[in-house]
């Protein structure tokens, strides 16, 4: 299964290049939220798609009440053009697989003020509207499937797209994850006392919570032979996908990370690889106290081998982009494989001794050839979805 194109909208702006450049330049993109008035909130940070980038969308995609719908369409156009696949016309069997957490619901947030809630229109009640802009700019001939399984959404979409391609249901799977910054989510995390005041520091002993982000990540999947036959070259390969559930608690991961361990084993078994073959774990690492520790222990256990697993989270730079997070991370994994750079834990100051079982990448990152990357995601509700990626130029990764 080949990744033949990628597209991104992120706190770094428009484009997968902007995303990857921000990673390599170690830019921290969280900061005070400008889209909502958070002056009375104790923690006021987000990782917003910059206002200039939002304005630039006007030249690329039609307008829509849902910013997320426009992020998704822009990401899909970029990914299809990157893959060299015409976005219009019924001459190819193309399906769309999208993951989100809140779909169009954040449109409702605009009515939050003081006093009565001023309810804008009804787009917020229609999750399918998330796909409206994409449908305007891309001719979809296969199925469109919208997943909302919590924060593993992006990986769920990649996995479903990969299954559809493998089954021959579609030739081209446009797989994406998307979210727009939501004041509802900021209010929720404020009440849960889970927001960092200044910086997300995944796996740091002084981590103080997460910061919500936003954006869209889109990957185009095709069979390698089809891609090669039309003169293309895989950017990377999807070696395996696996999903599981903690079946434990609505908001807390299982203390042993059971679901995560199960998906890591599932991916390795399916790809016939071992722990030692995994060169980098692109972690979920949200910067919350309990979750990072559980993830570190689970990864150490699931990938026990000759060396400690090499782990970093990009959420110190991009915040937690919720529905977009796993898809953006998959794109970072694709670029890391192509460029031979393991991104660092940019905001890590003092590694948590409780995370000693994993090899936390220093902020500068590491120049090293990568063959295989594991990218994992989980969220409220206990759903876990993990994707194993390999280099585009190798048969087995």
């Amino acid at each position: 299964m080949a990744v033949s194109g990628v597209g991104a909208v992120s706190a770094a702006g428009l484009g997968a290049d902007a995303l990857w450049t921000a990673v390599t330049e170690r830019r921290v993109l969280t900061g005070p939220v400008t889209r909502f008035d958070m002056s009375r909130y104790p923690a006021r940070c987000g990782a917003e798609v910059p206002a200039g980038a939002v304005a630039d969308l006007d030249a690329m995609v039609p307008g829509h009440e849902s910013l997320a719908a426009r992020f998704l369409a822009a990401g899909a156009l970029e990914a299809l053009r990157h893959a060299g696949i015409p976005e219009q016309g019924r001459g190819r069997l193309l399906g769309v697989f999208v993951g989100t957490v809140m779909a169009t619901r954040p449109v409702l947030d605009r009515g939050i003020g003081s006093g009565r809630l001023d309810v804008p229109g009804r787009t917020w009640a229609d999750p399918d509207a998330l796909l409206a802009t994409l449908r305007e700019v891309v001719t979809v001939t296969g199925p469109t499937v919208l997943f909302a399984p919590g924060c593993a959404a992006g990986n769920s979409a990649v996995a479903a797209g990969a299954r559809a391609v493998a089954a021959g249901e579609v030739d081209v799977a446009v797989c994406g994850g998307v979210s727009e910054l939501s004041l509802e989510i900021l209010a929720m995390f404020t009440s849960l006392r889970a927001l960092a005041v200044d910086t997300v520091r995944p796996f740091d002993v002084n981590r103080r919570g997460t910061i919500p982000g936003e954006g869209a990540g889109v990957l185009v999947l095709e069979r390698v032979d089809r891609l090669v036959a039309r003169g293309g070259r895989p950017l990377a390969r999807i070696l395996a996908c696996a999903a599981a559930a903690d079946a434990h608690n609505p908001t807390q991961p299982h203390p042993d990370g059971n679901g995560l361990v199960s998906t890591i084993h599932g991916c390795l078994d399916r790809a016939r690889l071992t722990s030692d073959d995994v060169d980098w774990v692109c972690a979920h690492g949200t910067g919350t106290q309990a979750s990072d520790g559980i993830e570190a222990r689970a990864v150490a256990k699931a990938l026990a081998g000759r060396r400690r697993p090499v782990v970093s989270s990009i959420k110190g730079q991009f915040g937690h982009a919720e529905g977009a997070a796993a898809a953006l991370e998959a794109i970072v994994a694709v670029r890391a494989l192509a460029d031979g750079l393991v991104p660092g834990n940019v905001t890590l100051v003092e590694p948590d001794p409780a995370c000693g079982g994993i090899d936390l990448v220093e902020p500068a990152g590491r120049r090293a050839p990568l063959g295989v990357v594991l990218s994992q995601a989980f969220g409220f509700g206990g759903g876990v979805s993990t994707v194993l990626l390999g280099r585009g130029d190798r048969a087995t990764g």
Partner: protein
Amino acid sequence: MPPVDDCLAVRGLGLRLPGVADAADLARLVAGGPLPPVPLRRFEAPDTDLGPVDRRTQAPVEPRIPAAVAGRGLRALPPESLLALAAAADAGTAAAGGPPDRWLAPSVLDPADAGPAAVLWASSSAGLTEYATICVEASTLDPGLSSPIIGPASAFNGPAATVSIRLGIDGPNETLTGGTTAGLAALVEAARLVSYGDAARALVGGSATVSRWSVAGLADGFVAGEGAGCLAVSPGRDGEPGIRLGRFHRTTLDRSDLAAGCRDLLRTVCGPAGGPVAAVVSTLDTELVRTLADDRVRPVWHLERALGDFGAAGGLLAAACAVAYCASAPAPTSVLALAIEPSGNAAILEVSSWGAPTSSSGWWGDNSRSVGVSGSPT
């Protein structure tokens, strides 16, 4: 690559629908039985500028949580999660009751060594009231004073998460949303997960709840649907009598002529003639259903017109109707479940029975009664 079509047998059906006591009841409706009257109910959203609205809706559906899964921890759950849990628990245990075959394990509540079970759930209303409540609280209370318990329930995945957590199901856990096709797509994804070995069996459901918030997302002119349905599925064996999920197809039809696209789709799945005795259609396009019915190839039953708009759960409930019908009619019987959205996004699934139930009480030991196979309920 293992074939995905024809791989799943239905092991149980759980229903929480207003005025529908069991699968046989649902089958009678599909066969043209009289529909219950639906009262007007008033919905309000205090502390907002949304005015009250009157909408035809059945009285709230009681979850009736089975004793085996009741207990502490349910009080804070949204009603839709409770409906989902109840329907899923019924579907998962129905097979334990009897013939013709069992869920690979005695029940999904006791999975033994049957392999991982997946949960796939379709909903467009789950979490919406909770999301709106947090928005209202963010407007009317100081920051940090919105309810911490409600917040995490404001996403779509409450039903799937609740089913997994309360029933201890640790396989893939997916929630699908969007239009009516989502519910059928959930069954397709379940078939894929089983066929690729990601899961040995699955609980596949859909649900909807009605509030002042959810009615804003529903089409005008339909009853606002509330309730849940769930199918328990696992691989079928060759020659095994029972109810099978057969051929399916997902596509996007050309919006300019949905009727022609639908006819092509029906031919793709069932050939030019014969085969399925009826089609259960989930769509908000009443005109399209009328056109299909006018073709007089087979009776067409319009889920939304009969039971109401259930949003993303519509496709799943269409499949549940087809299953209920096949369970109550003499085998072999085949019924199509079809979902079409205004965008052209569409899915179709063939549900069939063959062989005879080994118990006079029907496929799942419930009080299924035979229904007629004729009638044009549209």
